């Protein structure tokens, strides 16, 4: 069938600059560029280009420019190019339109309409370069009260037995991305960076590759509906366990890692045969209620002799506050909220862009609800989904998060350009792929360096912003919504966020 879908991008090549080195031909995993020997010229197939900028970045003479195709359908605010193209694609294939990464629509973000405070005259700001600044964060269940004992020899002794905690040197962790959806070299980079910086990386649902067990102290192992690679050693290998109920990019639905991606290596870690689809059912079939969730939380605690905190991750949805309350009461040590802008390796676009609610709203309402019920101390709250700068991190903490998860930002640090084609498994940057020809493009040593660099940069920025507000411990930012003011928000939005209007 002749496809009516027009190419999204046009590859322009300055033939005067092109030296026929074929770097672009070799770098593109979508077969966009090809060399014509007869005419000694490199040409491009526009329809294959995903605008990942790999060729343009590696072209030694900057001969390549990728442009959005100036040919487009008649402008129409309702019938957008995307809407028309999707329909044509679906008519031709009869399938569900897939996408990767987080929601790309502009109307679902609140971070940019929240502004931070700073000290002026009446309270002194602090210079983080010269004064101590505390970003260290402990996540896990905190006791209702602390009992201490005075001991003559040793001074004050803690009598209360504390629940297991994770110590984060900066309140940023790497969110779940499974081995299979991303490559082993990316996992290595994340694990090394987390160890070096003193934070944590999450395995996602695809198990923990053998060579990464040594980073266990900085690993959160995930248990999802497919139970891939879940066995006693795995559960005990990490510093914490995360039960994945939902994901911001695709709340309520399961996932399929297509058989093509289940290579020898993936098969070994997931413990499934090569080439079969790895199906993650939509629900966890042993969890149909809060009581059942409690059962799995405690099954995991039993399996690890109560030595590890258990996270429960949910997508931000309409009743997140009530659900989070249930999760805390079910015994979770940490609740993760993944907002509508959360990323994914593959999700139906219709789900990604239409299901779930913004993280900011869910976070504010969950924090408030847990406080109102007097159980906020019983669990830490982690904000995830679309955090793209250190300001987002600080705003999330001011809205009530203990720490945040980042994933897309981490991949961007490694080279990702958010082209949204992760689901093809052909990532030219060697990230969202298991093809060994492509995965070599990430060097774990350099990858870890880039990730550590990102965390360091963001941490410095957070300290600068805190210092500007006269605050020297992240503890004092947490849930401190007076540090935030809103702009361009309705009364209802401000009320839910628990934030005042700028100028108020």
């Amino acid at each position: 069938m002749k496809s009516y879908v027009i190419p999204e991008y046009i590859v322009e090549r300055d033939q005067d600059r092109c030296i026929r080195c074929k770097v672009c031909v070799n770098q593109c995993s979508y077969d966009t560029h090809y060399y014509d020997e007869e005419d000694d010229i490199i040409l491009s197939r526009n329809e294959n280009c995903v605008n990942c900028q790999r060729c343009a970045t590696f072209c030694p003479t900057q001969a390549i420019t990728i442009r959005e195709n100036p040919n487009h359908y008649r402008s129409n605010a309702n019938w957008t190019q995307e809407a028309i193209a999707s329909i044509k694609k679906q008519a031709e294939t009869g399938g569900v339109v897939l996408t990767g990464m987080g929601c790309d629509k502009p109307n679902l973000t609140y971070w940019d309409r929240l502004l931070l405070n700073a000290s002026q005259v009446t309270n002194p700001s602090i210079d983080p370069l010269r004064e101590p600044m505390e970003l260290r964060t402990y996540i896990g269940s905190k006791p209702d009260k602390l009992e201490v004992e005075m001991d003559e020899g040793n001074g004050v002794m803690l009598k209360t037995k504390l629940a297991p905690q994770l110590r984060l040197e900066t309140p940023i962790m790497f969110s779940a991305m499974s081995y299979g959806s991303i490559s082993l070299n990316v996992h290595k980079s994340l694990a090394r960076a987390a160890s070096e910086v003193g934070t944590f990386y999450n395995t996602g649902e695809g198990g923990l590759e053998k060579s990464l067990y040594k980073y266990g102290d900085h690993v959160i192992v995930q248990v999802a509906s497919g139970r891939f690679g879940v066995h006693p050693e795995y559960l005990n290998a990490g510093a914490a366990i995360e039960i994945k109920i939902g994901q911001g990019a695709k709340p309520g639905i399961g996932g399929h890692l297509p058989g093509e991606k289940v290579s020898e290596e993936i098969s070994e870690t997931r413990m499934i045969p090569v080439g079969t689809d790895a199906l993650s059912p939509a629900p966890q079939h042993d969890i149909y209620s809060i009581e059942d969730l409690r059962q799995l939380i405690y099954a995991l605690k039993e399996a690890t002799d109560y030595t590890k905190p258990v996270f429960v991750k949910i997508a931000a949805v309409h009743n997140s506050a009530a659900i989070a309350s249930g999760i805390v009461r079910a015994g979770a040590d940490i609740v993760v909220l993944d907002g509508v802008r959360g990323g994914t390796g593959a999700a139906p676009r219709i789900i990604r862009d239409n299901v779930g609610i913004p993280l900011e709203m869910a976070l504010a309402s969950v924090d408030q609800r847990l406080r109102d019920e007097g159980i906020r101390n019983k669990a830490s709250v982690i904000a995830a989904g679309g955090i793209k700068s250190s300001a987002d991190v600080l705003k999330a903490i001011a809205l009530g998060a203990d720490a945040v998860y980042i994933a897309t930002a981490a991949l961007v640090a490694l080279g990702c350009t958010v082209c949204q084609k992760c689901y093809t498994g052909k990532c030219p940057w060697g990230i969202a792929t298991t093809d060994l020809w492509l995965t070599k493009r990430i060097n774990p040593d350099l990858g870890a360096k880039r990730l550590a660099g990102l965390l360091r940069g963001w941490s410095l920025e957070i300290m600068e912003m805190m210092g500007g507000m006269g605050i020297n411990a992240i503890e004092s930012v947490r849930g401190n919504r007076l540090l935030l003011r809103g702009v361009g928000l309705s009364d209802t939005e401000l009320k839910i966020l628990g934030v005042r209007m700028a100028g108020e």
Partner: protein
Amino acid sequence: MVLKDVINRVPENLSIEKHVAKIDAYGVYYRDLNSLLRSLDGNGVEKIEIRNVYGQRYIGTDLDGHIKIDVYGTPGNDLGAFMRGANITVHGNVQDGCGNTMDHGQIVVHGRAGDLVGHSMRGGKIFIRDDAGYRVGIHMKEYLGKRPFIVIGGTAQDFLGEYMAGGVLVVLGINMKGEIRHNARFVGTGMHGGTMYIRGEVRHLGEEVEVTDLEEDDFRLLGSLVDEFCSYYRLDAEKILESKFNKLIPVSSRPYGNLYAY
């Protein structure tokens, strides 16, 4: 063995003779019971008898050794969850989630089972003498040397073998009178690996399942499983094997391969 070598304080409900420990679980909270089991595991105890079990959960979880456990009563949900290696015999019925995500070991139940027997199980064997509930063997999977087996002596309910990705599931319907017709619906929905052997017919199959006749290899495997099953319950394997069995296999290892527009 000296008791104090095993645990610091020997509870009143525990006695140890040679390598056999006996526990009276009456009124014991599950956390205390499992903590006691953990302290016995790997300390020279080879067998544990637990009596008066009334719904304590997670028995057998987090035990490393090849310890034998005899449970008298009704263990609670998630018996043997994530279990690797232990050998449990239950003299009574089991509740939901028996063998949940089990990796290795064996569970023999002299009675009925609730829902979710062997959920996501990857290795080991489960034998249930009588009926089992819904979603037996859901998402069982196999990998290299790991192949899980479940044999249900009675019948099982809807979604038997749902999402099944590996392993072997046998349903014998021994207690059924007349023509054997299992009442389960959506059997093998989403199945993409593994094999089911069903004695008699099934009311309703999932779309992803194909029914075939057994071949020589199948009879050999089925025969050995039924023999083992019968050895635990003193039943006549030959008589059971006389009946017609149906073999259920997935149509494809990639049931949802053509769902998407790229």
